[in-house]
């Protein structure tokens, strides 16, 4: 880990999010350097989704600081929007706009920079076709799919379109909440390989995961238990005993 906090793509310090019975996340520090690919581990309810929601700005923590590329959340609306534009989220349900074509969906990632007149135009005309085609090619998809409605795609194609949308967004921080949960093993490892390949500097990737067998390509793993970080280090240090403890073993 070469980069310190000022240049980190994401830096979380002392994050606390209260919950009904106990804090959903308590005193969490997490930092992502450019080019770094980090897997977020933990059993259901350990706080992974909450931490990701804090990381992408959907949830403001009760305590602690969030820095994106060294800067706290901007005060102005426009500044905040441009900050959000640098954060790309791969949603578990993908959240493609079902009524639109692949190209319109890819261009929807540009809205932070476009505003509504061009948003309207995007519904009427094929805009920035070359950039959209490049994003598809980067995800091993045929650019001929651009004029297809997303409803006509297979499950795997839809996943790739959602990932291509992150490229169109030109996000530096890539976040994904269990994106592989509902996929068959072969497709899951293919998509993970594509995602890992895209996460080169200046980008960084934080991905929550249920399957330790897919950890190989990651630089680092961060494990949560009961809302607290119980492990933060290279993936090869994560042995069987630690994993057993994470997923239902006795508390440390």
């Amino acid at each position, binding site marked *: 880990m070469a980069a310190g906090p000022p240049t980190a793509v994401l830096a979380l310090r002392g994050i606390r999010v209260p919950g009904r019975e106990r804090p959903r996340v308590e005193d969490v520090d997490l930092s992502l350097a450019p080019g770094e690919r980090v897997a977020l581990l933990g059993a259901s309810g350990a706080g992974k989704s909450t931490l990701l929601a804090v990381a992408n700005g959907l949830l403001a923590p009760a305590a602690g600081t969030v820095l994106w590329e060294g800067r706290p959340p901007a005060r102005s609306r426009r500044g905040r929007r441009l900050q959000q534009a640098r954060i790309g989220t791969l949603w578990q349900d993908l959240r493609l*706009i079902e*009524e639109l074509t692949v190209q319109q969906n890819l261009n929807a990632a540009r809205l932070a920079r476009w505003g509504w007149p061009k948003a309207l135009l995007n519904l009427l*005309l094929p805009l920035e076709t070359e950039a959209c085609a490049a994003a598809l090619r980067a995800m091993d998809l045929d650019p001929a799919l651009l004029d297809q409605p997303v409803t006509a795609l297979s499950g795997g194609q839809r996943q790739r379109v959602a990932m291509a949308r992150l490229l169109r967004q030109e996000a530096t921080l890539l976040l994904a909440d269990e994106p592989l949960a509902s996929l068959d093993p072969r497709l899951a490892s293919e998509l993970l390989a594509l995602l890992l390949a895209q996460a080169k500097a200046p980008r960084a990737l934080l991905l929550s995961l249920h399957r330790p067998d897919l950890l190989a390509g990651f630089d680092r793993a961060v494990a949560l238990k009961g809302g607290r970080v119980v492990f933060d280090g290279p993936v090869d240090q994560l042995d069987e005993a630690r994993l057993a403890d994470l997923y239902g073993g006795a508390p440390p």
Partner: protein
Amino acid sequence: MLLPALVPVPLAVLLPGLTHGGGWDLIGSFAAAAVTPSLDPLVLGSLVRGLGVTAGMALLGWAASLVLGLLLGVASSRTVWRTLTGTALPASLIRRLLAIPRSIHELIWGLLLLQLVGLQPAVAVLAIALPFGALVARVLSDLLDALSTASLEALRASGAPAPAALLTALGPALLPGVLSYGGYRLECALRSATLLGVFGLGGLGTDLKLSLQSLEFHELWSGLWLLLAVMLALEGSVSLLRRRWLAPGRFVLARRGVGERSREMLLATAALLPLCALVGHRLGVDPSALLAWQPLPGLGQGDWATTLALPWPRLVGGTLLLTVLAATLAVGLAPLLLLLVAPRAWARRGLQLVWALARLWPPPLSALLLLFVLQPGVVTAALALGFHNLGVLGRLLLESTDDADPAAEEALACGGSGPRLALLYGRFSGLARPYLAYGAYRADVILRESVVVGLAGATGLGSQLLESLSSFAWDQLLALVAAYAVLTLLGEDLSDRARRRWLAVA
């Protein structure tokens, strides 16, 4: 679902008591004229001109109501307000305000405006646009707020500004609903424009009423067949456009370019503008003339004692009885008739034709016709109103029956059930709840509509309202309109609850 069909039984008992001697020969010659409409070029020419005026008023009223409804619908959507400002409070407020213009029937609007600004083409257009606009707004905001906000949230999280995110995430999802409902409103506007004509606002309705009153049944039928032709052509073209634009993307859009469908829709909308301008010019619609209000006769010298002395319980009771009778007639008879004709395809076609006629045939004309043989009163009015709504509900039932999964019916038929029982158990059983839920909604439309059969006499608020209007009793009129609005809003609330209950368990 068939329970409401029992209502014809007491009616059948009551009816012989309500008939009065003469008039059956008139009904006979009316029915006979259906197959021998007048083909006199002079008659036809005048009818076509009348139809042109009616269709023009309908088009303009419809277009204005869509513009109004789109703007107000977006303004009363909770999702839109929440995305733009973080609170949905203004949406609820605007929604409540819109309930008022919606609860007043276009006929009342028309007659009120007629008194205010005098007879001019813009009156009918505005009378249609105001309540329809408020209706479209409600349906639209309901549609908007029912859409999933997942992709909207995703766009917002990627930094998209609120207007662009709303447009991209919800706009395309809203389109099918807007197109379907908008097309349906155009047919409603044509019916309303004909109805307004019956009450003297010009167009084909006026011709039809005059023909009926002078017992020129052959001319009457020429007008009706013309109207039916226009209505069917309209229904056909609306469903054609709907299929073209809304068919599942997998089958149709796959071979078309990005945004082509949207461009086509935009072009069609743009083509409507010069068309509306042309129609407005031909009809002599002058919006500025709407600003020249006539002095109101007798306003300000309200006689509230007389207003209070109106037999309110009887008026409200009569209106409610009329609504319940007409609603149960329509809701109950539609499935019953469909079951009766089920085994024969030609009978089904015949029923479809009768229903189409029932839809476009203005209820006050049915009431006038019924008065040839029946005494004035609630039952006569209910029959007229029930017949009209039977046409509306019947078509809906037929369409949803055709769309329903045929598997259960086929299985029953293979098991040896008769075609009627197979239809009843196989398809109607699944449709019962949504159908009844729609029936509940229809009941509050009927409550609003009960004013139009006021001329069948002694029918509650409606007949009193027409009477007060013709005697320029503004104070009474105001109180009656308010009473109508309150009843409609209560009815709306009641039918909303019933609908939620019926749909929730389904």
